[in-house]
């Protein structure tokens, strides 16, 4: 019966690995990884929403191209984050609303009224307003990603947060140049870049 014992070792080890991956290593419901995926998906959703509006309305080809880039990139990133949640066996929605407990202005979210102005303002003004709102939104996104790096351990989440910081910081510079070229007045004030408390 010794052979049976030896045979069973790799099988049991194998099942241990499977159990370990599914039950131990997957981030739990209250983990910073799951929270980040849900919060950042909701944050990205507003950027997609505003960008789709400008993709339809902008007459300036530079702004339209930026809006197209933002909408497609951020929607793809929402897909990446939803993919993690599915693989981790976590629902896309939590018991609490995403970003609950965070100061919505601190993380660069536009108010519902600000989002509506992108529809109601004349196209030229909506373009400038979009640039200013996206600038603030990106600053908030970078701050959220930086705060996440203090808490998350999963390599895919850390790499994602680092990409967000790099890409959105570069886009802020690009938006700054576009805003400067359009000599804006009355843009919404940008929050300082700083780490966001998660609770």
């Amino acid at each position, binding site marked *: 019966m010794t052979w049976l014992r030896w045979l069973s070792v790799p099988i049991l080890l194998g099942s241990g690995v499977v*159990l370990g991956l599914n039950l131990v290593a997957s981030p739990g419901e209250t983990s910073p990884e799951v929270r980040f995926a849900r919060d950042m998906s*909701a944050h990205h959703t507003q950027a997609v929403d505003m960008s*789709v509006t400008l993709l339809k309305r902008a007459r300036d080809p530079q702004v339209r191209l930026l809006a197209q880039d933002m909408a497609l990139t951020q929607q793809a990133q929402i897909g990446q984050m939803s993919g993690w949640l599915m693989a981790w066996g976590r*629902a896309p*929605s939590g018991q609490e609303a*995403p970003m609950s407990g965070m100061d919505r202005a601190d993380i660069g979210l536009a108010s519902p009224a600000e989002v509506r102005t992108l529809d109601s303002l004349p196209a030229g003004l909506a373009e400038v307003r979009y640039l200013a709102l996206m600038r603030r939104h990106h600053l908030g996104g970078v701050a959220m990603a930086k705060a996440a790096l203090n808490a998350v351990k999963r390599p895919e989440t850390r790499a994602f947060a680092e990409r967000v910081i790099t890409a959105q910081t570069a886009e802020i510079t690009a938006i700054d140049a576009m805003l400067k070229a359009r000599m804006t007045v009355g843009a919404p004030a940008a929050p300082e870049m700083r780490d966001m408390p998660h609770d």
Partner: protein
Amino acid sequence: MKRLLVLTLPVLLAACSSNTIQGIKTYSNTSSHVQGKVAYAQTPPAGGAHNPAWQNCGVYDRPLYNEYAVHSLEHGAVWITYPEGLAADQVQQLQQAVAGRTYTLLSPYTDLKAPVVVSAWNAQLQLDSPTDPRLLKFVQNYAQGGTAPEIGASCSGAYGETS
């Protein structure tokens, strides 16, 4: 190892059964794009043919056209409905339940038979009170998840009017 397996099995089973919500009804509507009015099998509809445009997720104070809202359900939205004339404090409780969420619709529904009906693609639940904990459980299970055919599709940038 065997003991570990025996110990984890009940945990796994419990985790699965905790996802079932008492009183939920499920259907097998199918999807297609049509123009004009649609007669739906459920009230409010929980799936079926729908308009090519979807209703933007959010809070509305007037009834919605079924045909747009059903398209949002296909995209993974949860639609919370209440009868016109529901007490203001109860409407407020519903608004709080969806505040900050990106894949929910909240609207009154003409001649609704229960104080709250919450619908997703091919799933529906009637509730007597907005504070019933099953409401949030339903939202958590079905918003961007559950049985929606197009999880990951947008719930904004389309139709934002009411009926």
